[in-house]
């Protein structure tokens, strides 16, 4: 009964979305307030309906209702409750439903918080949001119905992929989807603006908070995914340039570029058509990721069960959304008037450089991801594009981006001078060069590149600090100036410094890590990275739906007890799959990381140890980036839907008598 209720709610949601996607558009075109107002009600109704559907599927999972095919395929009665819950989106149909729910959530949020938007713009944004919803709801109902029944119901389900039975599944996909789907609002605003033929500072100020929120979630989602891979895959890697990782990186890069170019639109009324294009692309690249995961055109560790029919549907949808947006862009964008003039050396110029480099990075990732497919189809040649390729192409483009990142905030709008900015950065520059030299000679003689990257990381942090100090320091009233700093500026500084922390973490964990592996018997001792590891035993431990071999590794330092690491190998009984469970001891500056391998049958176990310096900073830094975004969101000027058009142009005192 409840699954049918969910199914029915989805059908109703589709009907509501169809109405919401057409009537307000017509109303906006004809200037009929009643028809436009329909959009807000419909958006809230849609959220309620998709919410009911999601609740119904969740109920089926929590109660292990094996009359529902989706539950049978992806759940098992012996699974711990947490994974019964997260299993709802640990599969194709359920994750699509989560995606649709988040889309409805953003639509409802626009309806609820968009009070200050002009009526026609709001109506159009909500209508476009609803049209996206139509696409996803139809996809769910016609190709991927999560509520399909089976008869007779089997005694138990097939269980969830053991790799997914991890707390990571609770947060990684929802955050990622909040990011992907959040960009749909930017897309809707862009298309609405193209329809209206009007892009101005007010528009940019409405779009930015949504983009910023989506960007923060996406940042967290990507970082969490990387951390998850780091501790589950068992060899200390944190980024693999897998097609699906790349698919999440591309919208992130486009979204980052969008955040910055929207500032130019807001402050200087320039870069308008480019910003609109980025808004369309950020969401289109999110859809591309979905297509890649679910269509089977590329192989990836993340891929869902693949079905060509679904692939064709998503491709058609991708084409409709992206093609519609870009077609409208080609038609309407040339009419957008170019705005404020500026010199190449200026804040605008810096932000254009930022956009240029971020877009190039996105192109590099896109090419690397899709090239094997292109070449295979055209010539039948098979090539692989892996980490060494991206290290050789992606990383060098980061260098000018990072170099310019600290300088840009010093430049003033319209016209600026490079030298004063550079002078104020000279201490940061000197320290960064020193850091790179120390890294090259003292820490690691092997990799010059790593040392340079380390210098860049230090530069990002110190250069950003210098920018903040410059705003505050100097004579009396520093405290007051500190208190008066706009939140947006504080947020920017946190995010920029956070990026530096990420870079340092990547250098440490990627280039300076140490590794040791040995077959150890009980009582064997191994010295590694300044610690001594003693294997105290391996015992069998029963879990809820697995049996584990758990090693006890005693770690001492200079003879004094330091910690105990307990890596495991878990055999999931339903799927008969072994998953290594790493043991990590972190002090936030370095990780001690241990995995347990096979036994040789004669009492020896393969133990792998890693010493990953600065590894936690990768995710800590990413968290800083997201935190910076959230701080920036609290800025009064950026609050969702804050200003209305034209009201803020002139201070009341200067209002001329008209």
């Amino acid at each position, binding site marked *: 009964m409840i699954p049918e209720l969910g199914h029915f709610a989805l059908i109703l949601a589709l009907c509501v979305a169809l109405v919401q996607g057409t009537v307000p558009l017509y109303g906006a075109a004809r200037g009929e307030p009643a028809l436009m107002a329909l959009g807000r009600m419909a958006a809230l109704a849609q959220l309620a309906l998709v919410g009911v559907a999601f609740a119904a599927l969740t109920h089926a999972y929590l109660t292990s209702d094996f009359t529902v095919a989706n539950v049978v395929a992806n759940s098992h009665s012996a699974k711990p409750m947490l994974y019964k819950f997260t299993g709802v989106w640990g599969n194709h149909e359920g994750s699509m439903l989560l995606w649709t729910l988040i889309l409805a959530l953003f639509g409802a949020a626009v309806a609820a918080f968009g009070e200050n938007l002009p009526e026609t713009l709001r109506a159009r944004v909500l209508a476009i949001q609803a049209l996206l919803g139509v696409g996803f709801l139809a996809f769910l109902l016609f190709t991927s119905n999560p509520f399909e029944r089976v008869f007779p119901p089997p005694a138990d389900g097939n269980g969830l992929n053991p790799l997914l039975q991890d707390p990571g599944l609770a947060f990684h996909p929802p955050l990622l989807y909040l990011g992907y789907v959040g960009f749909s609002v930017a897309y809707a605003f862009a298309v609405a603006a193209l329809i209206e033929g009007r892009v101005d500072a007010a528009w940019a100020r409405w779009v930015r908070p949504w983009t910023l929120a989506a960007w923060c979630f996406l940042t967290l989602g990507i970082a969490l995914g990387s951390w998850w891979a780091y501790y589950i*895959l*068992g*060899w200390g*890697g944190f980024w*693999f*340039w*897998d*097609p699906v990782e790349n698919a999440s990186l591309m919208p992130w890069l486009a979204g980052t570029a969008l955040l910055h170019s929207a500032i130019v639109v807001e*402050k*200087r009324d320039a870069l308008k058509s480019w910003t609109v294009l980025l808004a369309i692309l950020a969401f289109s690249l999110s859809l591309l990721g979905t297509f890649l995961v679910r269509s089977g055109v590329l*192989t*990836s*560790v993340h891929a869902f069960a693949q079905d060509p029919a679904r692939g064709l549907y998503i491709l058609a949808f991708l084409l409709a959304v992206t093609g519609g947006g870009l077609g409208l862009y080609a038609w309407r964008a040339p009419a957008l008037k170019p705005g404020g*003039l500026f010199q*190449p050396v200026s804040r605008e110029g810096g932000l*254009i450089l930022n956009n*240029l*480099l971020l*877009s*190039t*990075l996105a*192109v*590099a990732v896109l*090419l*690397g991801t899709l*090239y094997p497919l292109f*070449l295979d189809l055209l010539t039948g*040649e*098979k*090539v*692989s*594009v*892996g*980490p*060494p*390729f991206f290290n*050789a*192409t992606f990383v060098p*483009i980061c260098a000018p981006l990072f170099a310019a990142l600290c300088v840009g905030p010093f430049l003033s*709008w*319209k016209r600026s001078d490079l030298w004063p900015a550079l002078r104020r950065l000279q201490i940061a520059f000197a320290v960064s060069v020193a850091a790179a030299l120390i890294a090259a000679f003292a820490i690691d003689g092997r990799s010059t590149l790593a040392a340079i990257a380390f210098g860049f990381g230090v530069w990002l942090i110190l250069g950003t600090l210098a920018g903040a100090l410059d705003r505050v320091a100097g004579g009396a009233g520093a405290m007051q100036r500190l208190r008066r700093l706009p939140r947006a500026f504080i947020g920017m500084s946190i995010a920029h410094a956070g990026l530096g922390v990420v870079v340092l973490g990547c250098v440490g964990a990627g280039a300076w890590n140490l590794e040791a*592996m*040995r*077959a150890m018997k009980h009582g064997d001792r191994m010295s590694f990275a300044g610690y001594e590891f003693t294997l105290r035993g391996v015992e069998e431990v029963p879990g809820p739906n697995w049996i584990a071999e758990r090693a006890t590794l005693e770690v001492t330092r200079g003879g004094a007890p330091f910690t105990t690491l307990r890596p495991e*190998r878990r*055999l999931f009984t339903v799927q008969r*799959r*072994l*998953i*290594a469970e790493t043991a990590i001891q972190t002090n936030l500056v370095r990780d001690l990381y241990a995995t347990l*391998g*096979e036994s040789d049958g004669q009492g020896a176990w*393969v133990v792998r140890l890693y010493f990953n310096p600065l590894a936690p900073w990768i995710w800590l830094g990413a968290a800083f980036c997201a935190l910076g975004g959230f701080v920036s969101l609290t800025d009064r*000027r950026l609050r969702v839907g804050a200003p209305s058009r034209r009201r*803020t142009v*002139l201070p009341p*005192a*200067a209002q*001329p008598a*008209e």
Partner: protein
Amino acid sequence: MRRRALLAAAAALAAPAALATEPSEILTDPALEVRARAIGRTLRCVVCQNQAIDDSTAEVARDMRRAVRERLVAGDSDPAVYAFMVARYGDYVLLKPPFKAGTWALWLGAPAVLAVAAVALFVAARRRARSPAPAAPVLSDAERQRVASLLASGRDPAPER
């Protein structure tokens, strides 16, 4: 496809969660071992999804690691080891694709985009700087009033709002 699934299942049962490079594989000569690891990180496991043989637990990856070490012990240079693998598995096995006619677009695509866009921006900036025509647009009456009032109040026309 089906065979791959079966193979994966068989491998999972036969050699479950074996570690990537194992202690028994390590060469006694540390210099050779460093080279072997470096090569292993850039060769793709042919039955895995985007994994280097160095990180893979698949059986064929282990065999490939062993083959790499045998070649190194036999005195092969690094390029010779790569050539050995490419002769057997094609360019597919290289995680860093070779620079050849078929991959020019891959290697040069992003730099080309950057160069073209940079040149276009530069030309546009020059053109804009040279033609002062749009610099003096006709002001509407309302704007003229605004300018007058701004000048009178002595405020910066581009304030932080």
